[in-house]
């Protein structure tokens, strides 16, 4: 037991030590970071709390508040499943320390349990963000007593165990029996595709769910939600006792339900360790000591020794490194493209039953040549920028290779520009996609479209440069798995903060210049963001060497 705890501590430290290093600095910057985190927690908690309050309020009015617990548990398990697909693959198989851990005199079960602890602890962080506030609000609104809050804490500890064990077992099974895992890249790519399909299906199913909310009565919705919980219960045996524990008012029933959950989790754990001992190390060793070497003669006539302009070569390298790494592809590039598609797809699905004539009638009512329309669409594009993580990880993704920038005979400013190019290109694709899809419905005048496009491009430049500056100031260069760059990197909250600030600025400018017409308002936005972009790029140019001081 002691060894498992020690090992868990070591694994956790290697996972999170870089996060600490990232946030270290003088007292002033520490205080600033603390405020920033506080703001984010309050902000996220506020949104989740507001939504929860409304749902619980609605459910209380029809005396069905217990359904909320089922839904929250379902949502938490859903997030845990989704998250643990990646975390278990990475923690179990793709962390660099496996090579050093294997020769140590440790029992297989100790390594397995320590690794699994790390995955479960990672899930607790997700849980804290999405489940704690709703459950507290539920307690307050239903006037729950101390038993509820104690049960809630125990429930939060127990919830992720079953889904994590389930996903980890599946991952281990795939890793040891499938031939594709002999190639780490291919396996990660396939996993990426599976997760992608999963997220699209999830997005689409939410869209139809949304539609029904507006069409059906509350009672029917509750029945649906109950039905959904019942359906899932069969697969996740801990939901039922946990729901009982959180909704029951009897001490005895709560105790029995908690014991039942602990019992189920414990039995699952024993089965898990039994299976893992048989299959985990087979897959791990296979993964550690196999390469994906493709032997083949280099065909000299096939343009292999081409000469490219430096910018093409450099940006090409950036894209190749981004595309060929499934984790970076999935976490940095795909959300930026996929989320707009899913959201606009949902928007389109909601219009699917409306005839072309009716659609024209509706859209003709929207004054497409006003500043409000420009601002709303700019706001939507800004919202999509939140998911653009290419620039904010441009330096960190290189890890120790980032030092190449400093000895390459190319000015650092030029290299910075090449590094933000993929972010800018992907943002441009996203802007065009959004505008094309919105234009299909709204039929905006060309001038409105052009204004939105130009302002968005300037905002995209600002976002790309600013995020790079942040990554330069606080790079995460020491990582043991690529996963750390995207999941244990506090910098990733900055695109969200910038987008929120920008949306606020757009709203303010619209409020103050709305009466002066579309051109004045757009002009102000363009001047403001053009000016800011000039200032930050000038700052980057003047401080190009100083900004690279952390890279060495």
């Amino acid at each position, binding site marked *: 037991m002691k060894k498992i705890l020690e090992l868990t501590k070591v694994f956790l430290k290697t996972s999170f030590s870089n996060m600490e290093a990232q946030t270290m600095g003088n007292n002033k910057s520490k205080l600033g970071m603390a405020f920033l985190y506080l703001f984010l927690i309050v902000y996220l908690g506020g949104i989740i709390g507001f939504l929860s309050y409304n749902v619980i309020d609605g459910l209380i009015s029809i005396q069905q508040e217990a359904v909320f617990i089922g839904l929250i548990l379902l949502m938490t398990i859903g997030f845990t499943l989704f998250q643990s697909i990646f975390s278990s693959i990475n923690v179990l198989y793709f962390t660099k320390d496996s090579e050093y851990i294997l020769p140590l005199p440790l029992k297989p079960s100790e390594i397995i349990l320590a690794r699994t602890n790390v995955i479960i602890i990672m899930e607790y962080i997700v849980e804290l963000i999405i489940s704690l506030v709703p459950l507290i609000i539920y307690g307050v609104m239903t006037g729950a007593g101390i038993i509820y809050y104690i049960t809630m804490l125990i429930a939060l500890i127990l919830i992720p165990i079953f889904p994590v064990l389930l996903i980890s077992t599946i991952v281990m099974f795939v890793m040891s029996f499938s031939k594709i895992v002999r190639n780490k890249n291919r396996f990660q790519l396939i996993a990426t595709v599976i997760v992608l399909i999963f997220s699209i299906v999830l997005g689409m199913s939410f869209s139809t769910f949304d539609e029904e909310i507006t069409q059906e009565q509350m009672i029917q919705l509750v029945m649906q939600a109950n039905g959904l919980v019942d359906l899932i219960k069969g697969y996740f045996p801990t939901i039922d006792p946990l729901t009982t524990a959180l909704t029951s008012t009897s001490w005895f029933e709560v105790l029995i339900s908690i014991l039942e959950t602990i019992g189920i989790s414990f039995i699952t754990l024993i089965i898990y360790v039994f299976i893992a001992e048989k299959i985990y190390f087979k897959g791990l060793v296979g993964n550690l000591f196999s390469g*994906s070497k*493709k*032997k083949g003669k280099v065909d000299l006539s096939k343009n292999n020794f081409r000469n490219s302009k*430096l910018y093409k*070569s450099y940006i090409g390298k950036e894209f190749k490194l981004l595309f060929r790494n499934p984790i970076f592809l999935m976490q940095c590039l795909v959300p930026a493209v996929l989320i707009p598609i899913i959201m606009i797809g949902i928007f389109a699905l909601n219009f699917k039953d409306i005839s072309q004539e009716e659609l024209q009638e509706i859209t003709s009512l929207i004054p497409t040549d006003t500043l409000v329309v420009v601002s709303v669409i700019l706001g939507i594009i800004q919202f999509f920028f939140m998911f653009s993580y290419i620039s904010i990880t441009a330096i960190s993704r290189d890890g120790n290779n980032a030092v*190449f920038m400093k*000895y390459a005979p190319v000015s650092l400013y030029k290299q910075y520009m090449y590094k933000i190019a993929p972010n800018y290109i992907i943002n441009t694709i996203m802007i065009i996609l959004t505008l094309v899809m919105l234009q299909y419905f709204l039929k905006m005048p060309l001038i409105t479209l052009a204004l939105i496009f130009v302002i968005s491009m300037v905002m995209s430049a600002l976002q790309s440069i600013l995020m790079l500056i942040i990554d330069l100031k606080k790079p995460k260069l020491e990582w043991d798995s690529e996963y750390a760059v995207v999941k244990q990197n506090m910098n990733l909250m900055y695109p969200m903060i910038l987008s929120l600030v920008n949306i606020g600025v757009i709203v303010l400018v619209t409020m103050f210049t709305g009466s002066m017409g579309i051109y004045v308002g757009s002009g102000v936005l363009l001047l403001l963001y053009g000016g800011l972009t000039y200032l930050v790029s000038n700052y980057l140019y003047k401080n190009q060497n100083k900004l690279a001081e952390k890279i060495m």
Partner: protein
Amino acid sequence: MIKISNVSKSYVKNKKSIDSLDLEVKNGEIFGFLGPNGAGKTTTIRMITGILNPDEGDILIDGNSIKTNPIEAKKAIGFVPDSPDMFLRLKGIEYLNFMADVYDVPVETRKQKIEELTKKFEIYDDLNSQIQSYSHGMRQKIVICGALLSEPKNWILDEPMTGLDPKSSYDLKEMMKAHAKSGKTVFFFFFVLEVAEKICDRVGIINKGKLVFVGTLEEMKEKFKENGSLEELFLEITEE
């Protein structure tokens, strides 16, 4: 030619990691640089290659200051870092083409150099594979090929023999000798003392940030124990 003039560097206040380092590596020589762990070798390499800026003094590469004219200075350097794990998801040929683009190597030269170097190091047939599938030694070889593609006048090699098989190690040593013979410079950082004996024209020993000895191996033997092994001499110098 590499000229280091009165260079100092501190990471923390009042503690110099490098203290007034003066050194000149002349054209046509192989200069070996060694010292115990934490002596300041890595800091020195980082300053010569432009990764770190010296607090005081300057470094000239073929007359170009790494501080004031860094691009020209860096173009004259072929640098092999101690870790060969470079851009692992690029294919070997992509990495070499990228390096050739960064160092402005014309298409004809690059074709000939890539063939020559990769065949010499026996990785030509692996150029179509991603570097991450290479063994440590192969990675070392591809990084060496990338650094030498542009035919730089000054080679800066940080423990380049690590992971190389005996044949490749021998080939690299021969290449270093030939490079120096053609009037160019090899600045070579290493741990294995025997290598110094075989190929270095001069050696520099750094300890606690200070250069404690510069000269030929014979001079070293004369100055310290006459009949001591290289290892004993090294220990005597660095334990002073």
